[in-house]
């Protein structure tokens, strides 16, 4: 481990941003993997399952970086699986249950567009290990954006039940969309150290500008500001408690087993 990761002033904030990005990818990956076997059509089943796998892969890579920074004896698996639900730092947007297909597409659209802005915000960061990883992840996320964009168009322009379900999903999820940009503790230190290009609220504004044309074209509302953004990555829902029970199920059988 070298560079800013060892700087004691930025270390807590670096842990904060890594864990938030890792947990976001981990939780949306698991939520989307719930479609495996029951997606609307066989081809989409494969596509959504592969997207979900990509996200878990991104989470794994972030957890590995995080394990190096924390250097407390925990490996990526221990960080991913051995925490209590309250210790996860994913954003409130990802606390909603999987819901129907429209919920999944609405959540993917809101999250992937926000994640794209956040990835860009660390793409040129001063820590090469993180910058290199983010460059790879962005190549994969480009495809995710194309995929969710295709589906958002189809649901929004599908009329009838498709449109109705999409609007209902956005009504449920959009109030929490901006929590992807919930302020991080010590984010000023990250900006100072060149790990984050600007404070999170500036990135939220860039995200809104980036999705504005799509929402306007599809006559969909811009998500409102998040309520209580300081707690945007705390206070997880009962739906997440359930998901946590699911994704830790096997690990809990024997946490020290060798696979």
């Amino acid at each position, binding site marked *: 481990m070298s560079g800013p990761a060892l700087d004691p002033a930025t270390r807590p904030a670096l842990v904060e941003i890594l864990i938030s990005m890792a947990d976001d990818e981990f939780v949306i990956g698991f939520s989307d993997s719930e479609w495996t076997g*029951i*997606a*609307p*059509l*066989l*081809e*989409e089943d*494969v*596509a959504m399952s*592969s997207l979900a796998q990509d996200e878990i892969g991104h989470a794994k890579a972030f957890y590995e970086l995080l394990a190096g920074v924390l250097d407390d004896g925990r490996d990526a698996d221990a960080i991913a699986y051995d925490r209590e639900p309250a210790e996860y730092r994913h954003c409130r947007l990802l606390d909603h249950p999987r819901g*129907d*297909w*429209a919920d999944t597409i609405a959540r993917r659209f809101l999250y992937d567009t926000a994640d794209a802005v956040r990835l860009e915000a660390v793409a040129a960061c001063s820590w090469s290990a993180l910058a290199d990883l983010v460059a790879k992840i962005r190549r994969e996320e480009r*495809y995710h954006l*194309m*995929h969710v964009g*295709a589906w958002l168009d*189809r*649901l929004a322009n*599908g009329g009838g*039940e*498709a449109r109705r*379900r999409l609007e209902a999903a956005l009504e449920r999820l959009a109030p929490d969309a901006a929590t992807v940009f919930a302020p991080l503790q010590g984010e000023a230190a990250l900006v100072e150290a060149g790990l984050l290009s600007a404070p999170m609220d500036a990135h939220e504004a860039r995200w809104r500008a980036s999705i504005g044309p799509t929402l306007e074209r599809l006559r969909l509302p811009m998500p409102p500001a998040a309520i209580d953004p300081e707690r945007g990555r705390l206070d997880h829902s009962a739906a997440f408690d359930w998901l946590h029970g699911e994704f830790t199920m096997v690990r809990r059988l024997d946490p020290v087993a060798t696979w």
Partner: protein
Amino acid sequence: MTTSDNGERMIDEGSPVVAGVLEPWEVFRREKDGDPMRHGGSVMAPDPVLALHYAREMFGRRQESTGLWVIRRADIHELEDPDLLDPPLDRSFKKPGGYVMRDKLAAARERSGQAKLKARDAAKVRRPATGDPA
């Protein structure tokens, strides 16, 4: 997989019904640069954008393709009369391999009353039965 009478997949939990618009798309892939496109298989999709997404998932996720095409099966025109592909007269002289000698040799042997050629001699005069250049 459960399908309804008209072939649509039955969908649970409020998934969108893409009513009647799913159709087969033929996928062509290039295995490595410089190779021709070859048929790889097919995917079901409602339009070319999703067909390409699904083709990528099925035929291009693990670097097994360097290029992909999708073509709507409905846009493929098939020669309807297979008899047209089976010429009734011998045109084998048009093939790169030349005449098919087997029948002519048999006739010549019969005329001359000569015994069947030894296998070694037969191999010398035999020509490929199909002059497939591939």
